[in-house]
């Protein structure tokens, strides 16, 4: 057991050693200066507003003293001088600073992605007979210990009837991803499990599954691309599931616009006001070729990891469902093959 002096020496050594790897961002001082200039401008503006308000109050008060009955309030104890309009000093941070913190979280999601649950909801179809409205909800989770990725996808109709459910379980094994797919037909009470498919990491596993592409890492990368385009604005705050969030309006990434995403697409990102962790992203994609088709809206939400939310990413075959050996009929026959990019 070290004596007092040794402990002091050890503590001094360790306090320095354990913060050795911590270095500040280079631009903290510049950000403080920018923030100070903004705060000063706000104060000056508030002061000017107060002067205008005081002058206006003086005019009203003068009118009242001058005998105008219309402006006299009985029992008010005389003219009321309005409170000055000085804005409270808020803890406003630079958008660039917020973006840098959000991107740090996204980088973590894009590289690791583990331990996170991403929920993506989207609505497709314009409600016509050829293109009925279908709501899709995908939830994905990568187990941080095993690296196994789970994804469950549910399609439902406009009236809330569940049309299809499928599950993909992707297991990494010596550089190869093995994917097990299960299709569930709640209308026919049947399920179908085709032979397992494999793909190298980074590759796509083709399957007739979901109507949306969900990727925990790729979603983070796409949002990060948009944020890097430097066209981000703070557009307010919002409370989502009890969390205070900052609302960011983001222009679509030029790379994606080049690839065909309409320039008019709007992306709104909600990030936790304290940790800057992305909470929710809403993309509204107009159909520029057919405005009558309306807009395709998709929402990505990072859910808290709990036993209940993890369960949402997995599929339990209900009792009484019958396994069939071939592709499912009915709703499934109209679904186009799409791709799963879970990793």
């Amino acid at each position, binding site marked *: *057991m*070290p004596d*007092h002096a*040794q*402990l*002091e*020496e*050890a*503590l*001094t*050594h*360790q*306090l*320095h*050693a*354990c*913060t*050795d*790897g*911590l*270095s*500040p*961002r280079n631009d*903290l*001082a510049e*950000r*403080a*200066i920018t*923030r*100070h*200039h903004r*705060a*000063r401008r706000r*104060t000056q503006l508030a002061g000017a507003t107060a002067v205008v308000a005081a002058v206006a109050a003086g005019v009203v008060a003068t009118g009242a003293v001058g005998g105008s009955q219309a402006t006299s309030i009985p029992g008010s104890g005389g003219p009321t001088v309005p409170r000055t309009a000085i804005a409270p000093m808020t*803890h406003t*941070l630079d958008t660039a*600073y917020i973006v840098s*913190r959000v991107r*740090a*979280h996204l980088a*973590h999601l894009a590289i*690791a992605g583990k*331990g*996170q649950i991403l929920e993506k909801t989207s609505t497709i179809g314009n409600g016509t007979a050829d293109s009925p409205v279908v709501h899709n909800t995908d939830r994905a989770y990568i187990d941080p210990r095993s690296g196994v990725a789970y994804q469950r996808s549910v399609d439902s109709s406009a009236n809330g009837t569940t049309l299809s459910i499928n599950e993909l379980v992707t297991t990494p094994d010596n550089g190869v991803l093995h994917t097990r797919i299960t299709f569930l037909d709640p209308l026919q009470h049947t399920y179908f499990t085709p032979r397992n498919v494999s793909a190298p990491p980074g590759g796509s596993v083709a399957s007739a599954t979901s109507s949306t592409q969900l990727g925990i890492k790729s979603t983070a990368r796409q949002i990060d691309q948009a944020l890097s385009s430097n066209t981000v604005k703070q557009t307010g705050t919002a409370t989502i599931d009890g969390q205070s969030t900052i609302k960011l309006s983001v222009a679509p990434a030029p790379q994606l616009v080049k690839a065909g995403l309409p320039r008019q697409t709007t992306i709104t990102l909600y990030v*936790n006001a*304290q*940790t*800057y*962790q992305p909470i929710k992203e809403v993309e509204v994609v107009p159909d520029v070729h057919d405005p009558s088709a309306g807009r395709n809206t998709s929402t990505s939400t990072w859910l*808290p*990891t709990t036993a209940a939310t993890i369960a949402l990413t997995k599929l339990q075959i209900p009792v009484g469902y019958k396994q069939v050996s071939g592709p499912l009929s009915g709703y499934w026959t109209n679904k186009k093959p799409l791709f799963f990019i879970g990793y």
Partner: protein
Amino acid sequence: MQRSSRRGRPLIGRPRDETEFREFAAGFTSTLLRAAYLLLGDRDAAEDAAQTVLFRTLRRWDRARAAPEAYSRRVLLNVCRDQWRDLRRHPRSALDNPHATLEVGASPVESVAQRLALQDGLAALASQQREVLVLRFFLDLSVQQTARLLDVPEGTVKSATSRGLAALRVLLCEQPLEVPDA
């Protein structure tokens, strides 16, 4: 004579002020960030605190310029106290905050375990003990300087140091601090 507005607020923004502030920030931001990290145990919170300290120091540069390090240390304590209260009310889980701990990839497992044990140990101390230990053994302030900064008698600093070290000794008994070679 200091330049000031009618309401006594300093009119900062002169190039010389900003140059002086930049020089101070270039030399002391790292220390502020590291001290904030030790006081808060959270990297993101420490960055927030460091940025707020710089902003508030600049806002009162007319007062701070004579001894900006001492001024910013006092602001740091106030900011960290606010944030500490906030973190206790709304603790951030590792999932909420994946960058909460320092990433020192090259460190051996033992030193990482030791570092985490030290962070946990500091977090478990009473706030005054934690502040005293960080001020004295990280910022290398004397008992007298620490007492002045915390606005407490020197005896209080000495007793908080002693109790803090004793508490750390108990908390770290399973992961003893490595005594550096002489």
